[in-house]
């Protein structure tokens, strides 16, 4: 064991009470940091999972239609009031090429073509306005894990089959195997109302529960082919839904998608701006608390070591007289700071894990998951330990410098 470490450990062992008190302070501080980070991390993860679990990270769609005002053909002055046209369901031009371009953007992990439009679900005397979503189940599963939300039936959209939410099923009084009719709002569109799809009854193959009443009441999934037929978009896709590896990179990836395709790309960060603001505020509050805790820990370590330098002044003088260099004295006190930080963080991490586990077990949801989920992971422990050791060492710097720069003769005489 190096000389400096031997002396540092002996000094800490000699001042047991002081060492125990500061260790307790560091441990509580680190414990608070671990627990708070785990709790906020868990809450944010759950919130993001519940929000993004049922939606893509980026939705790519065609540019909106804008009216064109024709210029006057003669010298007459004409006044025109240009109204924003109603947006109809339109296909992305050459969507397969666009999809390939999107898939090649770094960070994109999955893409899936969709058609989304308004429809009316009718069964008997009941009729509900719904959002009809045409999907390819095999690619859409990589965007939204549909199967995990199913409460009845299975994901089977072959032919004239649909998936509906639990609330819509209840309102229409339909179960798996039951039938509903779908009417799209473009019946005046050429050909659409006359197709077999428009006239057909659709069999409910599965019922999902997204944990969101609005989605459960409004969303209906059908196959892409069926919706193409219903909306008169044979071979088309009105949108491409995208999943990215790093959710907070979604804005940047969306911008790149726009650059490469010329289409409109909305990331979840834009469409959920309020949620994002909330998450960021939460993170900022948590960070502030952690900064103050770290500051308190740093002051604690610095004050204990400053007292130790005063108490040990004569011994420091003796060490210097017996050949210990100023750098060695500096390292003795820096080592004490690092040791305090290291041991304190180990205890603190244990406290944080204990608190987190206890807190998570306090209340559970009906499905058994904790009401207050906590994200306890190795990265958090390592980060907390690194902070504590770093802060410990830095806090020791001033007292250590003071010790190292002591005049040995003065220290021996007056210490």
């Amino acid at each position, binding site marked *: 064991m190096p*000389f400096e470490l031997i002396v540092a450990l*002996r000094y800490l*062992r000699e001042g047991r009470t002081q060492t125990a008190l500061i260790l307790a302070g560091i441990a509580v501080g680190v414990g608070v940091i671990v627990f708070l980070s785990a709790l906020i991390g868990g809450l944010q993860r759950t919130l993001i999972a519940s929000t993004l679990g049922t939606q893509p990270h980026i939705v790519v769609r065609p540019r909106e239609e804008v009216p064109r005002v024709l210029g006057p053909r003669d010298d007459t002055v004409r006044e025109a009031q240009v109204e924003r046209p109603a947006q109809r369901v339109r296909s992305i031009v050459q969507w397969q090429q666009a999809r390939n371009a999107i898939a090649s953007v770094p960070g994109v992990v999955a893409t899936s073509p969709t058609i989304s439009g308004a429809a009316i679900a009718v069964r008997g005397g009941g009729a509900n306005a719904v959002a009809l979503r045409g999907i390819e189940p095999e690619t859409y599963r990589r965007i939204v894990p549909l199967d995990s939300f199913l409460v009845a039936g299975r994901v089977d959209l072959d032919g004239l089959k649909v998936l509906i939410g639990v609330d819509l099923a209840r309102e229409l009084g339909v179960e798996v195997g039951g039938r509903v009719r779908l009417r799209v709002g473009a019946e005046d569109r050429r050909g659409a109302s006359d197709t077999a799809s428009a006239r057909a009854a659709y069999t409910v193959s599965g019922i999902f529960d997204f944990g969101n009443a609005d989605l459960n009441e409004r969303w209906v999934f059908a196959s892409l082919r069926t919706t193409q037929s219903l909306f008169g978009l044979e071979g088309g896709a009105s949108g491409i839904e995208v999943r990215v590896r790093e959710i907070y990179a979604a804005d940047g990836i969306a911008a790149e998608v726009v650059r490469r395709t010329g289409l409109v790309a909305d990331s979840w960060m834009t469409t959920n701006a309020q949620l994002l603001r909330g998450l960021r505020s939460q993170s900022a509050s948590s960070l502030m608390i952690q900064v103050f805790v770290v500051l308190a820990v740093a002051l604690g370590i610095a004050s204990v070591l400053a007292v130790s330098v005063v108490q040990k002044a004569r*011994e420091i003088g003796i060490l210097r*007289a*017996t*050949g*210990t260099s100023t750098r060695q004295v500096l390292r003795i006190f820096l080592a004490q700071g690092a040791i305090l930080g290291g041991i304190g963080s180990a205890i603190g991490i244990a406290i944080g894990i204990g608190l987190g586990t206890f807190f998570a077990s306090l209340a559970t949801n009906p499905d058994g998951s904790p009401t207050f989920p906590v994200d306890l992971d190795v990265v958090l422990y390592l980060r907390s330990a690194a902070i504590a050791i770093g802060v410990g060492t830095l806090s020791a710097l001033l007292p250590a410098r003071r010790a190292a720069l002591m005049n040995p*003769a003065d220290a*021996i005489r007056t210490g």
Partner: protein
Amino acid sequence: MAHVERGEPLLRLEGVTKAYGGHVVTHALRGIDLAVGAGEFVALTGPSGSGKSTLLNIIGLLDTPTSGRIWYRGVETGALDEAGMTRLRGEGIGFVFQFHHLLSAFTALENVLLPMLALRGRRDVEMEARAAQLLHEVGLADRAAYPSSDLSGGQQQRVAVARALMLQPPLVLADEPTGNLDSESGDQVFQLLRDINARHDTTFILVTHDEHLAARCDRIVHLVDGHLASDTSNQVQ
């Protein structure tokens, strides 16, 4: 005033002065010229405030002179940086203080091996053997594992002597080494220093108020008000 030299000068001081203070300057040492040869046993005497301890600290490189030059083992110490002074002090000079000043968190053996541990950075079997041998020489072989605070004053001072000898320094500086001991323990410690001087030819410079003790040294350097008032040789007792 006789100037005693035995062999080559181990230590030479030329016009060493030390002044303290800002507006009101206090001169602790005024133009000290001194040469000490290898193997000498020198008593540094003088009334309180005469500059004995200041001179000892300057010789021991624990303090720097305001002016003047010092050569130790042929090296002019004023030309050394902090690291060079630390190395020269660690390897070449041993210290024994009035209040033993052992490190309370360490055992007797660990206190003895401390200078070598600081020098080498890591503890090893060889240094432990040497520390044990030194404790044996000072009659404390059976106290090696004792915490230093559990030893009597005389025992602690003997441990401090052993520590001063750990790196076999040619020069040992002792500041009132018996001043805090009863007469019997003091006599034992003094005799120990004389034995080491005789056996290893180690040079000793010993600050003392005790005239009887000074009379048992080879040479007496007497300071008054920072001046070297006298430098006399003694018949070795």
